[in-house]
């Protein structure tokens, strides 16, 4: 019998934000883990085994700030950055990424760098070709083809405490799922698989819309009935938006879909929930954004979906009403009353993911 211990696989995390650090800690249980960051403060904290945003960094984790050295060290890479930073980070690494690199991201957001955000108003039409998912950004910026993503009800601090949780890892390549699962999973963190990359990515992006609405309901003082109504109607809306954008509706019924939606709408600390709550307290969007230190991705997503609905002529009543509340100063009560009177009386048909028909 061969008793020699196999050397641990070397994996890399791009980004040292809150979620990035949690994922690095998770990976460190199974792998030799490296974090790529160029922020002085983060480098110092990781080197000293200190804390970032209240997360204690595992002592085995090493930091690398040179992109070439990072790419040469790790062939399995997990980008966990803000969606707007994804493209620039990939460009930084791209010259050193080879065809045998496997890249699995954990980023929930769209790349909208092709759009001129300032000029978008309520009637702007947005072409779906100008919206990229994160895996599309990776494929555009690097030469590797073996790409995947993971998404699910993964509130960072709960994972870091070692509480039981799960995620969905999606890739069209079986070997990507296999490698990702081996690196990420442990007895308290279960990795489920899917081949619908776009679907799993979109669930994570779109649920932020409903999280803002949940915050608003909470802010007005509504309770669980209203929230449950929002979640079920919201899930239906997300499903048909996703179907229009070309993904498999069943992804929305999985853990990355309804699972993440329930977690996000129940977590009162999430950024998107906070935006909704503050709007309900009478603040304008500008005031809210000024007060917040961090970006709430849902705000941008509402803009994008509103523009897509204008272009392709589909109804997304919750999203479109939120757009009016956030950007066109519609009073929140008017918005709610509009939704309650929206001529749509059938319960949801998730499986066929039909767009709503006004009756």
């Amino acid at each position, binding site marked *: 019998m061969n008793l020699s211990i196999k050397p641990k696989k070397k994996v890399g995390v791009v980004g040292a934000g809150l979620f990035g650090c949690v994922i690095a800690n998770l990976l460190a249980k199974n792998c030799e883990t490296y974090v790529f960051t160029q922020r002085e403060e983060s480098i110092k904290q990781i080197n000293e085994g200190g804390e970032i945003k209240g997360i204690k960094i595992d002592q085995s984790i090493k930091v690398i700030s040179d992109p070439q050295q990072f790419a040469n060290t790790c*062939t399995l890479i997990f980008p966990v950055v803000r969606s707007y930073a994804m493209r620039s980070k990939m460009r930084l690494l*791209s*010259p050193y990424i*080879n*065809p*045998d690199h496997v890249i699995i991201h954990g980023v929930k957001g769209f790349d909208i760098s092709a759009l001129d955000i300032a000029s978008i108003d309520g009637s702007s039409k947005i072409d779906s070709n100008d919206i990229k998912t994160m895996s599309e950004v990776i494929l*555009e910026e690097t*030469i590797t*083809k*073996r790409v995947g993503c993971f998404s699910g009800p993964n509130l960072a601090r709960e994972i870091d405490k070692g509480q039981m949780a799960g995620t969905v890892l999606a890739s*069209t*390549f*079986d*070997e990507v799922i296999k*490698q990702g699962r081996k690196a990420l999973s442990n007895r308290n963190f279960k990795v489920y698989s899917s081949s619908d990359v776009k679907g799993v990515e979109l669930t994570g992006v779109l649920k932020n819309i409903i999280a803002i609405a949940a915050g608003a309901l909470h802010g007005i003082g509504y309770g669980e009935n209203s929230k449950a109504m929002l979640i079920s109607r919201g899930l239906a809306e997300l499903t048909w938006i996703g179907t229009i954008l070309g993904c498999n509706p069943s992804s929305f019924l999985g853990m990355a879909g309804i699972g993440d939606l329930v977690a996000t709408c129940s977590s009162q600390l999430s950024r998107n929930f906070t935006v909704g709550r503050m709007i309900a307290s009478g603040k304008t969007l500008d005031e809210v954004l000024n007060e917040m230190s961090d970006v709430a991705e849902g705000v941008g997503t509402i803009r994008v979906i509103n523009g897509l609905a204008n272009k392709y002529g589909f109804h997304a009543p919750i999203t479109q009403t939120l757009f009016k509340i956030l950007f066109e100063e519609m009073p929140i009560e008017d918005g709610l009353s509009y939704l309650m009177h929206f001529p749509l009386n059938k319960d949801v048909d998730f499986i066929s993911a039909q767009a709503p028909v006004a009756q």
Partner: protein
Amino acid sequence: MESKNWPLIKLNEEKEAFVQQVILESINELKKIASKKDSSLIDVLEKTVYKEIFRTIHTPWAVDPKKEDRKWSKYKQRLSQITALESDEEKTDRELELLREIVDGYAREITGKFNLSSYKFSVAVVPVMFSWLLSRAMNGIKGFFTNQKKVSDKVQLKGSIDQVKKLADKGTIVLVPTHFSNLDSILIGYGVFLAKLPPFLYGAGLNLFNNRIIGYFINRLGAYKVDRRKKNAPYLETLKAFSRIAIERGTHSLFFPGGTRSRSGSMEDKLKLGLLGTVVEAQAKNFINKENQKKIFVVPVVIGYHFVLEAQGLVKQHLKQKGKEKVYLQKEQFGSFFQVLGFIWNFFSKGSEIKLSFGRPMDVLGNYVNKHGESISSNGRIIDVTKYFVSDGKLKLLKQRDSQYTQILADKIVESYKKENIVLSSHIVSFLAFELIKKRYEAFDLYNMLRLTENDTAIEYLFFYKKISEFQQVLIEHEKNGKLRLDPICEEGIEELIQDGIKNVGIYHTKKVLFVDSLGRINTKDMNLLYFYHNRLLGYSFEDKI
């Protein structure tokens, strides 16, 4: 390169060894399929025999060997004898024996009668005959001894031919053309000859061999037979093994990745992944095999002409399929030798040119390659392609991975078709005319529209003129951005564009696809055909811009 060193000739010299390798590797693949869950060898055999007996009864072709039905009936008897056997061991032996016989038969059918001496004869004689025939067709009886230059005027070659020629010495070329007409097999063969490329191993539809004389020549020009009626596992595995092993051995190959002719008249937007997968797999095997590091270069080719001989029949089939009439038996409409000659004659005598547009060569992942054969990324890096086949630090064959790579390659080929498509005047006028009529009858579905008569479809000339000048700007913009190619006449005056388009669109058909009526309006005599030719410009989202 000297002709005795052509890979195709080498393949032929080793023909028996090659066929044996095909048989052996197909059987290995089939054993793997049979060992999967919910499957077994007897299952595979039973399905095959059932389907083949069905085929011999319902779609017999002239090219099929005599008494084929008896052969399959005998196999059926043997199968029932096998199931009656007691010992499992004996069962397996007899099953494998039968499988071997079936695969052997397929391998020899696919390979055909290819042999060197007649190949040399055909390569020397056929193009000369063809040129002679074409120049006669073009110049009438008077131009008996016209030289070949004029014929090559008619068949125009565009794109990256010089690069393909250079790459043919460095690696293995796989040409993947679009497919609209049965004539394509002949045209592309002739194009390869005109371009002075080494000969290619073809996949030609078995239906072409129904015609004995055409069959004789295609057979000897390097064609292997693809029978789209046979959809059983042993046949498909044998065909794939044949293609893959030929490519592994460095034989330049050619097949139509769309599978069959486009029924709708649009360019392929989805490809069949079976044969294409053999290209990726051959590359993986070459890289793993240390002695054979030969790189494979994939070259999309777009064939363009103003009319498709079989358009009437194709569009009918398309409409039937679209109308959910899924089960129907395909009749062969490609007639006798003399009918074919008549077709070709008309094709060339009616003054309509043919364009073959060679796309930029790429590797099996769809990355473009430079003139040295190195793969280049979109930001100019040289890519080490072998690394795509490294998994967990080792060069490995992984079927699932390679099937995803095949999908990526297919997407890139489709993208390339759009870019390399040479838009002709006839494509533009038919697209515009159909879209304008469609706009007028917005509430109609396709089938209602196709039932419109001449009284309802006339378009005022001035209106058409205005619309086509707008459309021309859109097209020129697209050309500037490298999204398509425009035939020079399309960038000239609007009047010339309209005239040339109307004159040429579907020029051979008895009913005029487009004409100018007595009131000076533009009209059609056949909505089906107009729809068919219009479809050629689908996929660019021009519909929104008209």
